Each structure stands twice: as structure tokens, then as C-alpha cells.
């Protein structure tokens, strides 16, 4: 594609944004636009004179691309759940259209508010516009219920970008995953709109659309699978394992379809930008902890303890959080051994939070945020081990 005319326009505009130009202050915005449209022609100054073709733009855009299937299925499922609660039978294309109309405003509000803060901080603090906000903004809508008020989306995105990222100095410096910060903010500030049974499907007023996790949560002396089976026969939703894996259940927009998340995980691992150690570690940790709770279940009245590992896997956001949230490279551990520990602890913590505290049935959000805080400590121990080994070698 020859886009010479556009290149010429940008070329003409460039001096205005350079040192001494009239729009010098807006340079980061011009630079971002210019380099997103046309790859940079920046050259190496010294050795190595040649560089790998990959850059942060490419890394970030591929993460966004890996989320697109979740968006498409999410839209179909939102439409499907809506028609289910209205008692309609609609084709998947109708569902897609309905769902698309429902989630498009959420996506638009997220990106507009995200871009606003990113550009503002870029200009004020004179740092380049970071492509990382694209990923943050692509993740946020997927973690939200389709019924979320748009103003809350804007507030949460602003919180995630500003408090979660920019005050630390931008991408690469942040301590907590900004997308999860946004969701946690909503969770604690406006719990009525992001928890309970009423929000997960675009249902008629008063209609209840529980998530798989909220069914056993808080119940006493029951078996979780029995409860899910009973819910499936009493309600219009199907909470069988396979249906939860396929994703035709109420829930946040992007979390329900597990096999698309799995494909996303394989894709990100294949292209080599995400740590499979974290993902696998999280599943291993979840399995170990779930087996422990299963063993303890007979001694407790807590129904959540009876959920077997393979059900934990497909209930709630466990997989979405494991694949797309826990693996965020900046806030995760930076060493390979650290990544294993970090992942395993996230999996274990998720089950613990889900089981022990029924007020927060979605455990992975808090588990990842908590481990974000601890990842530097994990790395510290890994680094100390490396140092110790070296000192031992020096002593020989």
C-alpha cells in the first residue's frame, strides 16, 4: 500500500512539533501518531548496528490481537444471554449484533478515557506515548459485566491508567496491573454494579443471572457440583462443566469462553512474549490448593471447599486472569524461577480467596494484585540465591 500522500502530510507537519515549532509541546502526540502510521526510521547509533524486528508496539498490538476472539465471542454471548433471559430464540448473528451494540460503548469509553490520560501525561511529563495503554484499554472491557454504567467505565479506566500506571512513571515502572486496578476500583467502589446476581446478563428488571461462582458462594453444607446441577435444571442457564468451558454462561464480557482463552494462551506463548511458566504455575497452584480444600471439605460447612480443580478452572475469571492478567510482564516476577513461584501462589491464593471469603467469589483479581505487590520480593530471593551461588563459586 502506497500511502505517500499521508507520509507527505506528516512530513510537512513534523517541523511544527520539533524543537522551536509552534506545537512543540504536543510532540509526543505527533510522534505517537507518526510512528503508529509509519514504522520509525530511527537508526542505531553504535553497536549493535542491527536490531531485531520486534518492538514494544508489535508486542502490545499482538496482545490486543490475541484478545479479539474473546471480544467476538463475548459479544455473541452477551446477545445470547439477553435473548435467553427474554425467552427469545435468536441466531448467532443476531446475538453478535445485540452484544456488539451493548459492548461497543464500553470499549469506546475505555479507549477514549484511556487515550485522554495517556496523551495528557505524555504531553505534561514529556514522555513518549506508550503503546501499553492499548493493552490496558483492551483488557478493561473484557473484565466488566455488560450492564456496567458507562460513567463507571470512564472513572475506572482513569483510575487504572492514572493511579495504576502514570503516577509510577508509565509503562515499565508500574507496580500493579493497571487493568486490574481499574476493575478492583469498581469492585470496591460500586459493588452493586459489578457483583451479585443481577448484573451479568442484560436481563429484564428483577431478573437474576447468577455466575457459576455465585451459586455455591455462601451456601452451607452443600456440594458445589450438586448446586450447579440443580441451578442448571431450575434456571435457564446451563452450568455443566462443558457449557462453562464453552462459555455460554453469564459473566464478564471476556471471561466466559475458556477455549478461546486457551487459544490466546497458546498464541502468546508461541510468539514468545508471555511467560508460560506463570500460566502453568497458576494452574498447578490452583490444582494443589483445590485438592487440599477438597480433602478438608468434609470437616467444614463451607460449600466452596467442595469445588474440584477442573471446575475451578472453568468457573469465573480464573483462566482469563491467568492468561491475560497474571502474565503482564512488568508487574509479574522478572526471573524464571520467580515466575513459577509467582504463578503457583496466584493459583493457590485464588482458591483460598474463593473458598474462605464468599464475599469475594472472584478470587483471581485480588490474587494477582496481591502477588503484583509481592513479585519484587520473590525476585529478591531469586537474586539472593544467584548471588549466594556466585559467592560460593568465588570461595572455591
Amino acid at each position: 500500500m502506497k500511502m505517500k500522500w499521508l507520509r507527505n502530510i506528516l512530513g510537512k507537519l513534523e517541523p511544527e512539533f520539533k524543537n522551536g515549532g509552534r506545537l512543540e509541546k504536543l510532540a509526543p502526540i505527533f510522534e505517537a501518531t507518526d510512528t503508529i502510521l509509519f514504522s520509525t526510521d530511527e537508526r542505531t547509533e553504535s553497536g549493535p548496528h542491527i536490531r531485531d524486528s520486534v518492538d514494544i508496539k508489535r508486542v502490545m498490538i499482538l496482545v490486543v490481537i490475541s484478545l479479539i476472539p474473546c471480544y467476538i465471542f463475548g459479544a455473541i454471548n452477551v446477545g445470547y444471554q439477553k435473548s435467553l433471559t427474554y425467552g427469545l430464540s435468536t441466531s448467532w448473528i443476531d446475538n453478535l449484533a445485540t452484544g456488539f451494540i451493548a459492548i461497543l460503548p464500553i470499549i469506546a469509553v475505555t479507549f477514549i478515557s484511556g487515550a485522554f490520560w495517556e496523551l495528557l501525561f505524555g504531553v505534561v511529563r514529556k514522555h513518549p506515548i506508550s503503546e501499553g495503554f492499548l493493552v490496558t484499554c483492551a483488557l478493561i472491557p473484557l473484565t466488566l459485566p455488560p450492564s456496567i454504567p458507562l460513567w463507571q467505565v470512564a472513572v475506572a479506566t482513569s483510575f487504572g491508567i492514572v493511579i495504576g500506571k502514570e503516577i509510577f512513571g508509565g509503562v515499565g515502572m508500574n507496580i500493579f496491573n493497571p487493568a486490574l486496578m481499574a476493575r478492583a476500583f469498581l469492585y470496591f467502589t460500586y459493588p452493586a454494579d459489578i457483583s451479585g446476581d443481577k448484573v451479568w446478563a442484560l436481563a429484564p428488571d428483577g431478573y437474576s443471572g447468577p455466575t457459576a461462582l455465585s451459586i455455591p458462594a455462601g451456601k452451607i453444607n452443600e456440594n458445589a457440583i450438586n448446586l450447579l446441577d440443580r441451578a442448571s435444571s431450575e434456571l435457564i442457564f446451563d452450568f455443566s462443566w462443558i457449557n462453562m468451558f464453552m462459555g455460554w454462561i453469564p459473566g464478564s464480557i471476556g471471561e466466559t469462553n475458556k477455549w478461546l482463552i486457551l487459544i490466546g494462551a497458546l498464541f502468546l506463548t508461541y510468539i514468545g512474549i508471555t511467560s508460560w511458566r506463570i500460566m502453568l504455575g497458576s494452574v498447578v497452584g490452583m490444582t494443589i490448593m483445590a485438592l487440599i480444600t477438597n480433602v478438608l471439605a468434609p470437616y467444614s460447612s463451607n460449600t466452596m471447599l467442595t469445588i474440584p480443580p477442573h471446575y475451578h478452572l472453568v468457573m469465573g475469571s480464573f483462566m482469563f486472569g491467568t492468561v491475560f492478567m497474571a502474565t503482564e510482564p512488568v508487574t509479574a516476577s522478572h526471573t524464571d524461577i520467580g515466575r513459577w513461584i509467582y504463578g503457583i501462589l496466584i493459583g493457590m491464593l485464588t482458591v483460598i480467596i474463593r473458598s474462605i471469603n464468599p464475599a469475594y467469589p472472584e478470587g483471581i483479581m485480588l490474587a494477582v494484585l496481591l502477588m503484583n505487590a509481592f513479585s519484587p520480593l520473590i525476585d529478591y530471593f531469586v537474586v539472593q540465591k544467584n548471588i549466594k551461588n556466585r559467592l560460593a563459586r568465588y570461595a572455591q
Partner: protein
Amino acid sequence: MKKIIIKKGHDLKIKGSPENQISSPITVDKVALSPNVFRGIKPKLIVNEGDTVNLGSPLFYDKLKPDVKWASPACGTVTSIEYGQRRVIKKIEIAIEEDKVDSFDVLSDSQFNSANREAILDYILNANLFPLIRQRPFNKVANPTDLPRDIFISGYNTAPLSVDIPTIIEDNRESFQVGLNALNKLTDGKVYLTSKNHMEFDNVVNQMISGPHPAGNVGIQIHHIKPLKPGQIIWTVNAQHVLTIGRLFQKGFYDPRIKVSIGGSGATNPQVVDTIFGANVKSLLKNQDLEESHRIVSGDILTGVKVETDDYLGFYDTSLSLINDNVKRPFLGMLSIGSSSTKYSLTNTFFSSRSGNFDFTTSQNGELRAMVPINSWEKVLPMDILPNPLYRAILAQDIEEMEQLGIWECDDEDFALCSFACPSKINVGSVIREGLSLLEREG
């Protein structure tokens, strides 16, 4: 001894590799030495503009170690001495005229065998060839008053577009052996010669090693064979320079011949040439059609320096690369699918196979960003060093932590592939060099 197999790293496949290792001689009319490129010395000139010098006579010396002098690689007239800012000596140019040499008495076999360390060291110092020996840590000209723990010579080259070291060693076995014998006298430890296949030489420990680049780097080899501990000093000598030292003892004078590879996509005739130390770039590129815009790099493409046609080959450099400097700006390049001819990445973020020889450009392929740790550095650093914490410790100027994390064993050339692979376009090698300088200044 067990062969060391290195797994991490990558052999870059670059267009224009000199396949045919048979060298052809090139006549050179000018040579030069650049005192300002040697780390940690205070150069003081011995010659003035207009002086005539013999092959091997000293051009300058190091005020900090006055015994260490640099030999003229040719006989002729000093045509110009170029100064840079703060009067650093950038270049001493010599127009080659006659072939008068400074020569010394050749030691007989019995003299050589009974010679002690002092005698051999003085011979090399007097011939003004001591700067051929470098030291670790800091990768700088060695200090003749140090007694090195060991001496390392890499007979295994993995750097892209380089000359084939084993061929050169095999073709000059005798001189190489003499060089090894001399070096063996300079240390109480061992002389290690690394190679991919077994090499039969006396007075040397042959360690077989294999793996992708940077396995051929002497720093990586030291790390795997016998790591450098703080306070220790190891000397390293380039295999071609072992020949130079060997010939000095064989002939009694400085033989400045050296083989240099000329490659890269801009080289119309990739080849190995027979030339001399400090040869001028224009002469070296005689057989190439320089049409398009190309960057000329003296030294390895990963660690070398940018030069122009009227510049000279670096003192330690044995290759000259021509890289495409014509950087295009594709529309929506970040969304491109990519192909083996347009993209080369150690990640699988493009549909490119890294199989064919790639026409690299000097493009940085992206803008500088904060570090996003996706293990790109770790995958190409075959050392038990955590690059990311080390990088942070250097930025924080925390010398104690840098030492704990193993900076004594590091050199920027070993981190060049990390910089190549980094998606954030961070020049890891130059940060390592900053850390080493800090350590040297204050440690």
C-alpha cells in the same frame, strides 16, 4: 576435557557472509592508529607530523605504563596527527613508503626455552607489541606488571561475518605454536585455547566448546571454563594476534599482516583479504562497488564502530561490514504479517523463519521504551548472570550490588545480542560498559 556445549544465544544469518575463506592480498597505501580508542590509557606521542617511522617503531606510549608502546604497522611518513576535543589524539596517519623495519635478534631455541617470564615480556614490550594483549576484567590493554591467572585464546569464532579462525590457525601452525610458547611463559597458570574441534598444540590446554554466538566470545568461555573472581586478572589474546606474537619471535620483527573479512549486504564481493593492522578503509574496499548508501562498520557488526571510507580499520578489528543504511518507513508496519525477507526476529511475532541470510538495515526497528521483561535478554546470554537485576543495579550506580551480581565477569561485547534482541531497544551492552567504568573508577 569435556566439551562445553552452550545452548543460549543465536547465530545471526546475515547476507553477504564471505563464504570463500581463501584470502586475497590487498595493497594498502596508508595506515593509522587511533590512541583514543584504547580504554584506560593516557597516550603520549613519540612521533611528530612529518617524521619518518620504521615498521615496528613506537608511535606513542601510555603515560600510566610507560613500558607499553604502540608499534607502527608500516614504514613511512607520519602525514598527519588528528586531535579531537580536549586534545585527545584521534588518529596518527602514516603514508606507506619504504619497508624499513625495526628488528631484534631472534632468540635461538635454547635461548627461548631457557628464557624466563621477564625476558619474554621485555621482548614483546621492546617490539612495541604488548597492546595486543588485553585483560579481563574491563577488557582493556593489559598491564605488564600484572601476573595473570591464565591466558585465554578463542579459536572458535561465532561472530557474524567473521574470518574463520580455525583455518587461519591451521595454515600457520608453526607461528601459532611459537606464539603459544611465548604466552605460556607469561603466566603461572595455563594458556587455554578454545576450539570447536580438537586442536593439537603444545603448552596449551585445548578446551572444546560449541554453541551459537556469543559462545565464541572469550568472556563467555572464561565464564564456563574457569570464572574470573574479583581481584583476579586474566589476559586474552585474539588468535590472529597470537600469530603476530609468534612471528615476532620467529623473525625478530613485527609482521603486521592480518586477515580481515569484508562482508554484509553492501559488499558486492564478500571476501577475506590479506592486509595489515590499521589499513585504510578505502583500500580494503577496493574490490567492492560502493553504490547504495551503506554504513561501514569496523569490527563485528554487533560491537564494532561506524567508520567512513577515509577512516582506518580498528586496532583489534578483523572484519569490516557494510550494512544497508536505507531505512524505509512502511505504512502500519506494526500490523504487518512479515516475511522472511522483511523481518528477522528472535521472537515469533512475525511470519519469518530466520532461515535465509537476511538483509539487515541500520534501522533500530522501534523506539526506545522502558524495559518490558519478556526474557529477550536471558535467551541470548549464556552466562549464570541475571542481566535484568544487573542492569538495574548499574542504573542505580550500586557498586556493591553490581559486584554481587557478577559484573567482574561481564563485558559489553557479551551483552551485544541482548541489545539486539531487546524489544524496548535498550542498549544493554553500553549500560554494562558504564557499570564497568564506574567499577573501575571507584571500585
